């Protein structure tokens, strides 16, 4: 898998050397793992595993019966298959050194349960007015694809 291409905007946020890129964009490899695609796409898009550290995925997957106030329960074997995929491709997985910046500002003891709580996410959405998330067709900041049309393919550009 090719490492992520990080845009000028995100690179600046993360304190990396800015590359010449026309628009803000983060490109991650699309999720291809069958069980994750099938079981994590019913209620929202499949979130990229690279956006949370392994310990966060382990915590989330350990309590699917109480997943953000809903049951997303799965049989144990399917759950184990998914947690294996998510942790192997997490932000702190060896393969993802190039995008380790997504963990900037996160302490080794922090276990963030939301991408929308990650410091990089908050900074890159600082200019989005909170009222926009409340629009009926968007509903919540977690609805990435409402604003990033190709988000489910790992492509996050400005609209």
């Amino acid at each position, binding site marked *: 898998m090719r490492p992520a291409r990080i845009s000028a905007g995100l690179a600046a946020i993360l304190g990396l050397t800015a590359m010449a890129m026309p628009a803000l964009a983060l490109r991650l490899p699309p999720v291809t793992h069958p069980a994750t695609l099938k079981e994590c796409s*019913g*209620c*929202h*898009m499949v979130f990229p595993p690279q956006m949370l550290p392994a310990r966060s995925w382990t915590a989330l997957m350990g309590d699917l*019966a109480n997943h*953000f*106030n*809903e*049951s*997303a*329960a*799965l049989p144990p074997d399917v759950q184990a298959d998914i947690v294996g995929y998510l942790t192997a491709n997490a932000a702190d997985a060896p393969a993802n050194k190039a995008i380790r910046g997504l963990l900037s500002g996160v302490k080794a003891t922090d276990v963030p349960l939301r991408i929308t709580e990650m410091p990089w996410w908050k900074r890159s959405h600082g200019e989005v007015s909170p009222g926009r998330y409340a629009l009926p*067709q*968007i*509903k*919540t900041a*977690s*609805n990435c*694809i*409402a604003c990033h049309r190709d988000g489910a393919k790992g492509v996050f550009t400005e609209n």
Partner: protein
Amino acid sequence: MTSRLLFVALLIPAIGVAALASAGRDGIVSALSAQAKQDNSKFTSFSAEAGKKFWFTAHVGGKSDTPSCVTCHTKDARTMGQTRAGKAIDPMAVSANPNRFTDPEKVAKWFGRNCNTVLGRECTAEEKGNVITYLMSQ
């Protein structure tokens, strides 16, 4: 001639798929019916009316954000619903979405999740059969 042949060629698989879908649904409903009889010897048959009531009721015991099935599936089962995370849900009415209730594994999984979310418990076989019967009538 060619167009008629083409029409027939297209029609056969279409009928085949619809028949398969309804066979899948019938299998699910009869398995629920057998279970409902085992749970309650007085059970006779599923009721669309009871299913409708269950579908619309604001239940207690579940999570406060989701008091009823229509919270996500909307009051008109022939239209699109929306999850709490903003994603669209295809219609639940079989008339609007013939693939509904045709995959036993999918049906069991979502009854398991959504009954626990809305009621804080599993649904009974009778409740499940009533809901499917209601949505087949929509």
